[in-house]
């Protein structure tokens, strides 16, 4: 053990335990300050889903959106043209588009592994954005970035 290691340990003790480690990596919570994360953590609920467990079904109303902390989720959409599916990995978000499209689930979601999700009520989210406008702008910007990135990757995968 060197003096450098002891210094690192003391520094980490001084900072204390990182309470928001799980949230910090989420795609929509990037560049939020410690205090903003603290405020946002008040409307976040940790949920655990076992392998194969249904998270939500297509066409039911949306009350919460989920941020994937660990594990994996399979989204499956049944349309008149057929079925399509995709996998959602950690730090991505489930239900942002649904939240702004008739407030209904556009696809069904199922955990493909034991999965930890962080749920945020869309009513809490709206209230949070209204009452914390500066943080709200950051969150909505991050959401826009996420949706744009997703749209671009869809376009490139379809070869347009």
């Amino acid at each position, binding site marked *: 053990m060197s003096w450098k290691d002891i210094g690192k340990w003391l520094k980490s003790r001084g900072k204390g335990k990182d309470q928001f480690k799980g949230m910090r990596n989420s795609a929509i919570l990037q560049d939020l300050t410690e*205090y903003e994360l603290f*405020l946002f953590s*008040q409307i976040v*609920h*940790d*949920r655990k*889903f076992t392998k194969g*467990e*249904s*998270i*939500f*079904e297509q066409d*039911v*109303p*949306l*009350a*919460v959106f989920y941020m994937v902390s660990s594990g994996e989720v399979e989204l499956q959409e049944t349309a008149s043209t057929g079925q399509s599916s995709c996998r959602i990995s950690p730090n991505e978000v489930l239900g942002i588009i649904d939240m702004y499209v008739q407030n209904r689930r556009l696809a069904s979601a199922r955990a493909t592994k034991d999965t930890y999700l962080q*749920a945020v*009520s869309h*009513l*809490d989210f709206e209230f949070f954005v209204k*009452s*914390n406008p500066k943080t709200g702008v950051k969150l909505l910007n991050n959401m826009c970035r996420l949706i744009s990135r997703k749209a671009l990757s869809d376009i490139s995968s379809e070869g347009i």
Partner: protein
Amino acid sequence: MKLTRWLIYILFAAVFVAGIWFYSLIFKYLITAVIFSYIINPWINWLERRRIPRLLGILLVYVVIGLTITWALTRILPLIIAQAQSLMDFIQTSSSEGTVSLLKVKFIQDILARVDQLDNQVPILKLHDQFVSLIDSINRGMTNIPGILIDNYQKILTAVSLIATVPLISIFLLKDNVNFRKSILELVPNRYFEIAILLLHKVDEVVGCYLRALFFEVLIVGSLSSIVLTILGVPYSLLIGFAAGFANIIPYFGPWMGGFFAVLSILIAGKPPVMAIYAALGMYLVQVVDNNVVYPLVIGTSIKMHPLIVLLTVLAGGWAFGLIGMLVSVPLVYLIYSLVKVLYTNLKEFKMI
């Protein structure tokens, strides 16, 4: 294995029942603390958003409330007590002099003159004696008020201990309300999680809105009515103003009661009847301000219930639990109705029924 599971269930049920029995004694304190917390929570949230730690925010709000109450106790309460004393003296005089004293009131004398006139025209009615006996029974009812206060001193003491305990319980409820909410939701299985969130929101919306509505309406309508009635020179203006504020809690009918108190006090005090019209207009003006400025600004949403259902609910609440029943029956019924509606709609929407 099955027997063990049943034994554990029975043990849990026994612990649950024992817990409810044990804590039932302080249940009313807890409910009052929850109500108090609901009213002041938005202010603490507002301070927290401005980077003031929650505990400090709670203490700041407590200090502000404490100072306001102290100010009210030193400035307004003596006036209210003086008016109440004057009213009690009037009642006591009526009691010692019997029916004759109340019959000296000009308004009552006017009615008695009309009654006598009617008796002369239709002697068979004999309304004079019946009217005098009615006044006598009102007199006796009014003189019982001090007796009721003395007989119920224990209840008054309980109320005082409630006032001392509630803020203490509320500190914990306010400080950890987020954790309490999260802990409740953690117990809910994944399948029902989204419905539970929607239900909690509905409870927050209805209970929070209504409790804040009660608080601000009592305060603002009470103050405005007192000011208007004092300007108009109505006797017992502060007492009547705050009685009108409390009566305003009852939707549709409460506002009329406030006006009725004001008019009644003018007529009993023998003031010119035209003043009753001014007082009624003044109270109407207060209602216009309340409906168009205070309510939309402070509360935003209102209880949507048919007036007939409100009337029946108020009557049923009054018969079952007295004055408190009259005041809380409407929000309670509305809350249960809203929850059942939200639960039924969402269970259908989530394809669970």
